[in-house]
């Protein structure tokens, strides 16, 4: 498969993906609504902070943090593990292997195609809420604002590559879907999805700073809210994030190759 033919196939893959998203829009909205965790945490912590700041976070700080987390989570969410598992179980994956486009590209295209609709549903309300109730808790540095998009893109790629790799485990073990639960538990704590990383007890914040999970969610949230960061710090963060994304992507593709070889040997 040449790069050129892949590049030619991508626009159609995106169009089909978008048509699918639109066709299943209702299911789609329901899935997005299931990301209630940040809203519940938001409700909880704002009530707590109403009696006075909690560990340096005021009520608007919490609003900014969790709304930003909600945006990042909605724009970077991925269902690729589920997709790969389902296709292996139903025997469709073999068909995918016969197409002259690398499955990673095909899966990625169907995810990218969903982003506009996700943005359309998630962004307007959250952005207005952010601008009206938590202005002072957001960054005002233009350079840092410019870094928001790259950090979101990096978070998307890192999350997708990581989950693609996790999906590849289905080639090797039967109950890899259970791993998705474990992943979510670890992710929620170490990415700052459940609680801002700095609030974690004892040594956890230090460990979390250097693990890839931080760059899936906390990093873009930090860039948006601008807490103790500055443009220089933000640039460093994004550079590190893209480094992680490249590394995880390479690992995931290697895992895919090994998995497909095994799949071909056993015949699924």
């Amino acid at each position, binding site marked *: 498969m040449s790069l050129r033919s892949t590049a030619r196939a991508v626009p159609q893959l995106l*169009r*089909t993906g*978008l*048509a699918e998203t*639109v*066709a299943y*829009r209702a299911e789609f909205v329901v899935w997005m609504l299931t990301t209630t965790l940040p809203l519940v945490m938001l409700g909880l912590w704002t009530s707590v902070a109403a009696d006075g700041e909690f560990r340096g976070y005021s009520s608007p700080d919490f609003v900014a943090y969790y709304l930003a987390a909600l945006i990042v989570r909605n724009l970077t969410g991925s269902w690729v593990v589920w997709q790969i598992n389902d296709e292996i179980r139903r025997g469709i994956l073999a068909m995918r292997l016969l197409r002259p486009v690398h499955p990673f590209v095909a899966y990625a295209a169907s995810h990218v195609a969903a982003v506009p609709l996700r943005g359309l549903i998630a962004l307007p309300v959250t952005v207005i809420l952010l601008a009206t109730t938590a202005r002072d808790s957001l960054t005002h540095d233009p350079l840092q604002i410019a870094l928001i998009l790259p950090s979101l893109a990096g978070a998307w790629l890192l999350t997708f590559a990581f989950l693609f790799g996790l999906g590849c485990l289905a080639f090797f073990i039967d109950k890899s879907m259970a791993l998705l639960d474990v992943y979510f538990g670890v992710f929620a704590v170490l990415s700052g999805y459940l609680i801002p990383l700095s609030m974690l007890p004892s040594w956890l914040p230090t460990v979390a700073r250097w693990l890839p999970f931080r760059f899936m969610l906390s990093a873009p949230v930090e860039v948006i809210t601008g807490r103790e960061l500055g443009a220089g710090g933000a640039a460093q963060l994004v550079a590190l994030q893209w480094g992680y994304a490249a590394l995880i992507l390479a690992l995931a593709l290697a895992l895919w190759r090994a998995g497909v070889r095994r799949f071909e040997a056993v015949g699924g």
Partner: protein
Amino acid sequence: MIRATDLRKHFRVHKRPPGLAAAVRSLWHRKYETVKAVDGISFAIARGERVGFLGPNGAGKTTTLKTLSGLLHPTSGTVEVEGHTPFRREGAFLRQITLVMGQKQQLLWDLPPADTFAMNRALYDVPVAQFDATMKELTELLDLGPLVTKPTRQLSLGEHMKCELACALLHRPTTLFLDEPTIGLDVSMQLAIREFIRDYNQRHEATVILTSHYMEDVVALCPRVIVIDGGRLIHDGDLRGLIKTMHPGKLVSFTLTAPMADDELARLGAITREGNRVVVQIAEAALREAVGHLLASASVTDLSIEDPPLEVVMRALFKDGAAPATT
């Protein structure tokens, strides 16, 4: 006694056209269309009859069957099965009938069929003595033997189907609705199931209504066929009658020992030739004379007279339908 009078079942379905532009448009404008799955069908079936429903895919056979078994509420018209109105699904009615769908299973996947049997015994309140007797009879007739204690997921398709049938008949229903009961099975298994159904029909004086893609099932089992196409009834009677109305005449085939010109043969009727072997379709009235003529000819041997095969009849019947009901 089963009676359907001017039965209709219409569905409103949403059309989802292909392509992105159409998908976006359907956000605002949903197009609906009414599908007339069954459109004015009437028939009466007496207790103990074996009736085959024939028709191409989407003709309305399964919808009719589902309406008779009480799963669907008719749009209009009336249905009556053994004095009950099916869609009320009263206990007394449900205990008398059974529905077997070849493509849908009711056996529990992870457990041996015996567990599902026990469940159905409880559901249908079958007394233990009667259950044991029925089980014994079914085991013998269907040759179940050790199958009932193997997990269902380990059974072959044919074994699975035999157990599904046993499961559906444990409460000794007197009205059997069978929707494609032999689909996907090999020939010997089809034969076994067919024999079993006939046997059950005779032992319990049970009414059997069957749909099948396999013409042989219908030919072997059903003295009476109801042909449905496009939601309408187009034939109700015996197979012989169906063949007569659709395809008058007989097929006379013979071998030529010396060449004979096509137009001389064509005077007898429509011909098809394959080397020396000739098949001529001859109207009933002209049969005696034509056969006499052929037998008198020195160049004809090995002559036989047959009804047209049902497949040919069905193909003619559904020539403008989607697919003829043959395999």
